[in-house]
């Protein structure tokens, strides 16, 4: 599983690097982040991401496409369970822990550390 995580995770990052290096558009890191999350949502909604998670574990969940997968599955499962309100609750309920961790740790780090130069 460790090797699969390495290979699949590395490959997903490689796709991002090639998008930045080989396309004629000015693709910034911000575009990569937004694009990968959105792509993850779409691929997951079509049912193609869960098999990759089953195969590669963290190799599929650690890249930002995995965050998109989390959002999509949250929205879809909650929509099935509770209907229209679930459509509104699902995505953020599923991602609540991750988003809170990012905001809290991000805020604390920006508070504690001073930029260099």
């Amino acid at each position: 599983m460790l090797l699969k995580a390495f290979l699949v995770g590395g490959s997903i990052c490689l796709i991002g690097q090639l998008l930045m290096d080989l396309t004629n558009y000015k693709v910034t890191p911000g575009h990569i982040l937004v694009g990968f999350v959105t792509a993850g949502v779409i691929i997951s909604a079509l049912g193609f991401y869960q098999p990759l998670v089953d195969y590669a574990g963290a190799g599929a969940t650690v890249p930002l496409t995995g965050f998109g997968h989390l959002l999509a599955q949250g929205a879809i499962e909650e929509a099935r369970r509770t209907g229209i309100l679930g459509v509104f609750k699902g995505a953020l309920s599923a991602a609540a822990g991750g988003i809170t961790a990012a905001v809290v740790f991000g805020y604390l780090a920006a508070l504690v550390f001073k930029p260099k130069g």
Partner: protein
Amino acid sequence: MNSSDPFELQKREYKKMVQQVKPKPTVIKNGIMAFLVGGTICAAGQLLMNFFKARELGTQDAGLATAAVLVFLAAFLTGLGIYDEIAKYAGAGTIVPITGFANSMVAPAMEFRSEGMVFGVGARLFTIAGPVLVFGIVTAWLAGLITLVLSL
């Protein structure tokens, strides 16, 4: 004819050769670095997953714990200036994993701290995370809505 001039011919050949050869080494080198560093971060994530699963956390909770640890480490290393040093060489290898998301929050927030806690740190945390959440949430909302409509 110009092409019969050996100098001109050489020049043109040389230009062609340069164009063919020049971008490739950096693309290949960048690609290898992105693959290796990105793969390593994911493998580290897998080690954390295994650790938390062995602590009898379910798959979802183990995933959250893993993400939290990775985000913490990335925020910490960004604060120390180490993450951006690695990112110079690793490119997308440090952008695409969840650690890159944390980095994209901390780096601008730190930089604009002089503008204050609210509109410096607070707002800049979401310079890139904001758009990521907007597009992620709207697309996921659509996915949920389509699921609902199809199930009617």
